């Protein structure tokens, strides 16, 4: 059907992709996933002929540990995929997404660390489901009263929530142990064939692979949700809540679901982060990160999982890579320092000229175009 529509026009990448045989598409996808798995290995670059240690790198970040950067990027991508459920699918603006991430990390820390005041000292793996549950339940508690109201109240309440969690963790000497934080969080379990533990301190690659696997799992789950009855309810609620309600969609229930699922993904990410870091304190959960994740979702394309991935990669990987490139060119330009400023500007410009994002969701783009058309006659009246 798409072929008949596109006839006569030069087919874009998307149309050509859709027209390819199913086997080819699967093979390409598999190749991409394999590439992502081998990306942090040094031998891969040696094999390709890049001299390691010198500055001639296409992908490698020269200023910081590449596997570490990939791990951080993966954290952002997973958060962006989770936030995309809330902002993109259900159309709810959640500004405190990092709060749930912090909750997940702190739950794992408190349950597992020998230094924690709880004194439970669970293994890491046992604490992860609890962390996900805690994040999800707090999402329900927070969303319960606010999701019944206008969407803009949700934004401010979630913003306050994330900041309050950070402030509490920073100031209270009680359970979160203030700025000293909680050290001694155990790594994930497992040992390699040589008997050494799989997840160590120095090598960030296993954590990256773990996160990559989790990302793939979450994507499959979220994709299926979006294409199911639940996903259709989200779209209906986002486009016109009153109409959806009249048509028999229990909008509040589905909004709460979206909020809770997003929170659970954030909690999971936080749990993995705590397992890698082995030490957390309040400085790791600043508000800027919440905004960066949101910027990632918006840049990539609200409501599109591919967009969330692209956006997450851009917001974290690109500044790190640019640092290396800047050094290569002899320019001392720390892109990470200006990151928030640049993304703020980009977001403003983008909302005006390309609100659908870099990789737009087709339906979202159509919604924006539709509204723009509706605006035309009104504008003629009011500009007189």
């Amino acid at each position, binding site marked *: 059907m798409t072929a008949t529509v596109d006839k006569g026009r030069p087919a874009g990448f998307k149309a050509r992709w859709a027209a390819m045989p199913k086997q080819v598409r699967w093979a390409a996808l598999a190749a991409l996933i394999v590439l992502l798995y081998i990306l942090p290995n040094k031998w891969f670059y040696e094999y390709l002929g890049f001299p390691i240690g010198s500055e001639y790198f296409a992908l490698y970040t020269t200023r910081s540990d590449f596997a570490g950067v990939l791990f951080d990027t993966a954290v952002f991508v997973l958060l962006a995929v989770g936030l995309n459920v809330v902002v993109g699918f259900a159309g709810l603006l959640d500004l405190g997404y990092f709060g749930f991430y912090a909750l997940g990390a702190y739950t794992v820390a408190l349950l597992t660390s020998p230094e924690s005041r709880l004194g439970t000292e669970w293994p890491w793996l046992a604490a992860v489901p609890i962390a996900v549950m805690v994040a999800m339940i707090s999402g329900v508690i927070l969303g319960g009263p606010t999701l019944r109201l206008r969407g803009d109240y949700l934004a401010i309440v979630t913003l306050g929530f994330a900041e309050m969690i950070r402030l509490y963790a920073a100031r209270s000497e009680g359970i979160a142990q203030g700025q000293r934080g909680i050290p001694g969080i155990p790594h994930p379990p497992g040992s390699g064939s040589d008997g050494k533990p799989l997840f160590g301190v120095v090598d960030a690659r296993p954590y990256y692979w773990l996160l990559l696997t989790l990302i793939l799992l979450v994507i499959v789950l979220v994709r299926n949700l979006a294409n199911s009855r639940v996903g259709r309810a989200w779209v209906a609620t986002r486009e016109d809540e009153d109409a959806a309600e009249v048509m028999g969609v229990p909008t509040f229930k589905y909004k709460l679901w979206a909020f809770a699922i997003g929170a659970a993904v954030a909690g999971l990410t936080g749990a993995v982060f705590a397992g890698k870091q082995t030490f957390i304190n309040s400085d790791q959960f600043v508000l800027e990160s919440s905004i960066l994740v949101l910027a990632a979702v918006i840049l990539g394309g609200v409501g599109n999982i591919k967009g969330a991935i692209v956006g997450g990669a851009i917001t974290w990987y690109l500044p790190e890579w640019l640092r290396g490139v800047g050094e290569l060119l002899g320019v001392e330009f720390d892109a990470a320092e200006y990151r928030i*400023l640049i993304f*703020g500007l980009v977001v403003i410009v983008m909302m005006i000229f390309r609100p659908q994002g870099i990789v737009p969701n087709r339906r979202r783009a159509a919604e924006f175009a539709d509204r723009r058309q509706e605006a035309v006659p009104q504008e003629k009246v009011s500009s007189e």
Partner: protein
Amino acid sequence: MNFDELLGNFPALTITGLEQGAIYALVALGYTLVYGVLRLINFAHSEVFMVGTFTAFWTWEALGYDQNSAAPALGPLILALAAGLIVAGVASAATAVTVELVAYRPLRRRNAPPLAFLITAIGASFVLAESFGIGTSRAPFGMPTLLPSETLFTVFGAAVTNIQLLILGVTLVMMVGLDQFVNRSRLGRGIRAVAQDPDTAALMGVNKNRVILLVFVLGGLMAGVAALLWNVRYEFTKFNVGFLIGLKAFAAAVLGGIGNLRGALLGGLLLGVVENYAAGLFGGEWKDFTGFVLLIVLLMFRPTGLLGESLGRARA
């Protein structure tokens, strides 16, 4: 729980609360005005306040006051305060207007969905905060003590200082002035008309865009006054000073009923007082929580706020 602390210092906590609440109320007016007319949470308003604190501080520096200079006599003091007030008010209003013209107006022209407005508002807020953060190396700035704190009289054993009196007095004057302006003047009638029904107001010959600009100017002026009072009281500013104030001021606006001018005053004072009681009762680290918890509880039971949402029917 420390009831002795709360009961023993009750009058002092109340007065400190009113003083802090007055600043929240002034900032809250900006949120309420813009929300009443545009149905938009202007996240960038906290940065409008921040710009005010910096410009007032720089004005004082330009006038030759630094942290070590002695407190000036009455004449130069009034001059310094007035200069700071004018500069902060103009700078804050200009910032608010710039955000409206650069960020919001193009979106309105394109009939963007509410989500796009909110995202833009956050973007604008971060651009402002970060450009000041980068420009000032993210350092905190101490200020000259223009008005040394001095106890004037006591109420139930609680000292009332000249600064507290100044803050409460200025807030009340600004509040009454703004209330009269919106309710009595011709321009104020335009604001109320657009708040009530933008399309009908436009048909009746009200220039919608000019009213919106006016609303941003008024909100900016109020934030500028709040910034000056903040400088006099706390003698400190930083690039992210607006964030917490903005959050609390917004909570205050919702508490009183967003879109309602008198509600903003009530909400601000109430929030300030309750916050201080909570600090006395549970300890200082819980202070910032209070506003937030109060906001969530209120949203559960009375989402329209204490006085209801009505800039359009502000007379009632």
